[in-house]
Structure formats: structure tokens, C-alpha cells
């Protein structure tokens, strides 16, 4: 009972615009990579499988059953966990509780999304229904519009500029060049971003992440078995999960995500540390403004100083707190259900010292900030080696 919980294996597919394979095959690739990544682990050792996906993209009803079968995991229990873009972080939290309770020892968490499964009209229709369908969708609300409204409020309140937003994408592009699993591996400039088409003012095309296909897998294990499975187990030391109103009209603030602030408090408290103790972080940059808000919501800088943090390149490797050195959602792509697991994979590799060209020196503590939708679900996880 009350075992510590470690990540012992991580894997992900390359994120692509259109993967050209089925969801079962996509999940298989991520799963095999995670099993191979753990030194001493095989399929039979897994005693639970949590599948994470936003079901509005799925053609297969109840995909967990299908995937368990394809991976050869029957009769091990399986089910779907959903919190839109935060699905696989929530899956990891459930796996943690399963192991911590003593009910399970080794649990695989697979997140996937094949967003190319939908036509762009279908996908737009889903996007609209992501807002409150009674009171906000009827006006033509959509994801970029909500984040544009956050950006506008942030700019008004703190003087954040469009150039500062663009600098987030410049960093993302630079690091994506070093991530072979990123969808875009392209450098870009402030000028190019500033001149890209406006989607919802002040956000332009390059301020927004793109739909993608992909899967991620992380394998969690109890303390008793973790060290047998992996030479470099990475421990989960803090967890925070919170919600905020779906409707913008019910929110008290629009220049910050209250679910992230609340989840941060829980996670820092559980891990017994402060923002300055974090060596490397993955934050949910679905839009450039989201990364700036995350800096502030996580306490990496004072409220309103997120723009300054990127101006001073403090979130680059070598800066105060390197953020999204795998390219982030903006360049890696954002296959909704797979994103949290991909973020966790990056942090695990960092803490093991296996991040290659993007290794943050002596990284001991890492953080994953994963947000669902327009900030209705906020998950923060803290990892230590």
C-alpha cells in the first residue's frame, strides 16, 4: 500500500497531418516503443490499460476494447478516459491512483487521436460544439476565438504584444528542428508569423497549433517493481487536477486559466516544492498566448510578465526555466488525446538525461501542464528522477 509510482516506459508515434493507418496500428506503435523503452518488461506484465481519446473524433465506438484486443492485452481491464486535450494526463492520474491503491502494479496509458479521420466540415462542427452549446456556440464561437479573447484581455491588462506572442512560436519552431517526432520541423521568424493570416484577431495562423494524428504511451509502475523494470525510473511526485467553467461568461478572469492555477497549487503542495525548483517544463501551448499565460499561472514569472520572460529568452535552454524544448503543441502538432502522454514522455527523457540536443543540464525536476479545451480542465504533474 501507498507505494510510490514511477514512469518506467515512454513511447510515441511521429505526429503527422495524416497518418494513413488505423487507430489500432497507431496505438500499437506507441505501445511497442514504450515496452521497448522499459529495460525489462513485456505485454504480460501490464495489468491495466487506460485509453485516452476525445471520442468525437473516433469512428470506432468504445475504442478501448478494440485497442486492448489489438495489443494482446485481453483479459486485462481497459476503459476510456476523456478530458479533451488533457485526456492522457487524466489517464495518468487514474493509473497513479490504481497503483497507489494497491489494486494494480503496472498500468499502460495510451493516448491517441486520428484527427484526419474527420472531414474539415465535420471537424469544424465538433469545434463549434466545444463551447457552451446553448449560450456561446450559437454566435459562432470556436477555439481560436476564445484564446484570441484571452490574448486581447492579456494585452490590455499587461501590455503584452503580438511580437511577444510570435516569439513563442519562434522558440517552438527552433526546438522542433531537433525533434524527429514533430509534425513541423521548421524554423520561423517573428516577421513571418506577424504577416501570417489572421484567424481571430489578434491571433494569426502561426499563433495556433495544428490538428494532427498520433499516439503516445506511458507505462506506470509501483515502487516494488519499478526498479526491476527500468534502470531510470522517473517518479511522479506531484499531481494537480482542477476544472473551470466551460462558458466564458461564467469565468471571473480571462487573462489566466484558473484551472491551471488551482491545479498548480495542488501539485506544488503535494511535491513540496515551488516554481523555482522546476528545471524543465512542458506547457500546453495550443496557442501562443496559452504559453504566456502558463508561465504566469505556474509561477515561472509574476502575473503579467510572461511576455518579458520570452523577450529575455528565459524559457530557452540555458534560461531560467526551459519550456517546451520539444517544439510544444505549436510545432509538434496536437493530436488531442495523445498530447499529455507526449508531454510526459519529453519530461521523462529530460530527467533521464536522454534528451540529446535538447537536454537541459542536470534536470532533476520536471513539470507537465496539460489543459483541456478552452481551459475547463487543468492538469499539472510533477516528476523527479
Amino acid at each position, binding site marked *: 500500500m501507498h507505494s510510490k509510482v514511477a514512469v518506467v516506459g515512454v513511447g510515441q508515434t511521429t505526429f503527422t497531418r495524416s497518418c494513413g493507418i488505423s487507430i489500432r496500428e497507431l496505438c500499437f506503435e506507441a505501445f511497442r516503443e514504450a515496452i521497448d523503452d522499459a529495460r525489462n518488461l513485456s505485454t504480460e506484465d501490464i495489468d491495466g490499460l487506460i485509453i485516452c481519446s476525445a471520442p468525437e473524433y473516433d469512428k470506432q465506438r468504445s475504442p478501448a476494447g478494440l485497442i486492448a484486443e489489438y495489443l494482446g492485452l485481453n483479459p486485462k481491464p481497459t476503459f476510456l478516459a476523456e478530458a479533451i486535450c488533457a485526456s492522457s494526463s487524466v489517464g495518468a492520474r487514474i493509473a497513479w491512483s490504481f497503483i497507489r491503491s494497491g489494486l494494480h502494479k503496472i498500468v499502460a496509458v495510451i493516448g491517441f487521436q486520428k484527427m484526419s479521420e474527420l472531414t474539415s466540415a465535420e471537424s469544424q462542427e465538433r469545434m463549434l460544439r466545444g463551447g457552451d452549446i446553448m449560450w456561446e456556440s450559437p*454566435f459562432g464561437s470556436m477555439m481560436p476565438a476564445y484564446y484570441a479573447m484571452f490574448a486581447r484581455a492579456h494585452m490590455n491588462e499587461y501590455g503584452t504584444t503580438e511580437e511577444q506572442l510570435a516569439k513563442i512560436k519562434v522558440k517552438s519552431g527552433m526546438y522542433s528542428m531537433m525533434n524527429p517526432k514533430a509534425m513541423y520541423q521548421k524554423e520561423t521568424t517573428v516577421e513571418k508569423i506577424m504577416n501570417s493570416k489572421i484567424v481571430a484577431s489578434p491571433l494569426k495562423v502561426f499563433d495556433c497549433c495544428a490538428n494532427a494524428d498520433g499516439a503516445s504511451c506511458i507505462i506506470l509502475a509501483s515502487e516494488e517493481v519499478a526498479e526491476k523494470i527500468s534502470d531510470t525510473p522517473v517518479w511522479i511526485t506531484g499531481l494537480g487536477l482542477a476544472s473551470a467553467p466551460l*462558458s466564458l461568461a461564467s469565468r471571473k478572469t480571462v487573462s489566466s486559466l484558473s484551472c491551471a492555477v488551482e491545479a498548480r497549487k495542488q501539485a506544488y503542495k503535494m511535491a513540496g516544492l515551488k516554481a523555482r525548483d522546476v528545471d524543465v517544463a512542458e506547457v500546453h501551448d495550443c496557442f501562443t498566448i496559452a504559453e504566456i499565460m502558463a508561465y504566469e499561472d505556474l509561477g515561472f514569472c509574476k502575473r503579467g510578465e510572461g511576455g518579458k520572460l520570452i523577450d529575455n529568452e528565459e524559457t530557452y535552454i540555458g534560461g531560467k526555466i526551459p519550456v517546451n524544448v520539444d517544439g510544444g503543441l505549436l510545432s509538434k502538432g496536437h493530436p488531442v488525446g495523445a498530447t499529455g502522454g507526449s508531454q510526459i514522455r519529453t519530461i521523462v527523457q529530460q530527467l533521464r538525461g536522454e534528451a540529446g540536443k535538447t537536454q537541459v543540464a542536470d534536470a532533476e525536476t520536471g513539470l507537465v501542464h496539460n489543459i483541456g479545451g478552452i481551459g475547463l480542465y487543468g492538469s499539472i504533474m510533477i516528476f523527479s528522477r
Partner: protein
Amino acid sequence: MGFEKFGIMSYTKETKVEDFVKHLEDGRIMGTRCKKCGTIIFPPRADCAKCLSSNIEWTPLSGRGKLITHTTAHFAPAGFEAPYTLALAELEEGVRVFTRICKDDEKDKLKIGMYVQLVTKRLGDERITYELKKI
């Protein structure tokens, strides 16, 4: 039935607060008020999450408020025509509203903090909505 007439496009037709649309048609923008604890709710709800009472009544709103944030969408989801401006405003009663800014005001420079008025607006096909106007 009745709620399907609300907004530019609707996604649901049944709600306990569908009389909201009738009030809109009569030119009134109404919120609900919990008779038990006095909370004013907008957009209207039939149930009070504060005290779990469903004993609510309609209450008129002044519609006067201040702009909190806005965006002009240059790409529109299916069924909508870009560009249009979405905004969030806080009304005098302390409640917030998410809707569009009226077309005439859209071209002007919108300023966060400026005064706005929430007004009813008839659309084609017997549809009805509300929008924000500069005052």
C-alpha cells in the same frame, strides 16, 4: 421547444428556460433570480447551483455593461459567415454575457472597458438573438 430560435444557429431546442426566447421577442432581456437565495443568474438557468433550489423567477436586466474582451473572427466554422466580432461584457448586475458586437460598431476601434448595451436583434427565419452596441 422554442429555444431553437435563439442565436445565429442553435444546437438544442429544449430547456426549462425556453421562455427566455419569448421575452426576447417582446424586447426584454431577462435573467433568472433564485427566490430562495436571491442570486441573479445570466445566461438564465432554471436551477440555482448555490442553494440547489429550482424555485426561480424571471428578472429584467438593464443590459448596460462594460466590454471585457473581444475578437474578430476571420475564419468561420460551417454555417457562419466571417468576419464577425465576438465579445464578452460584464453587465451592471454583475453577470457576464458572451455574444457578438453589432455590425455597425465592428469597424470602429473597440476599447476594453468601454460602455456597451445588450440589445435584442431579430434575424431572418423568425430567429432572434441579442448583441452588444456601443453607447
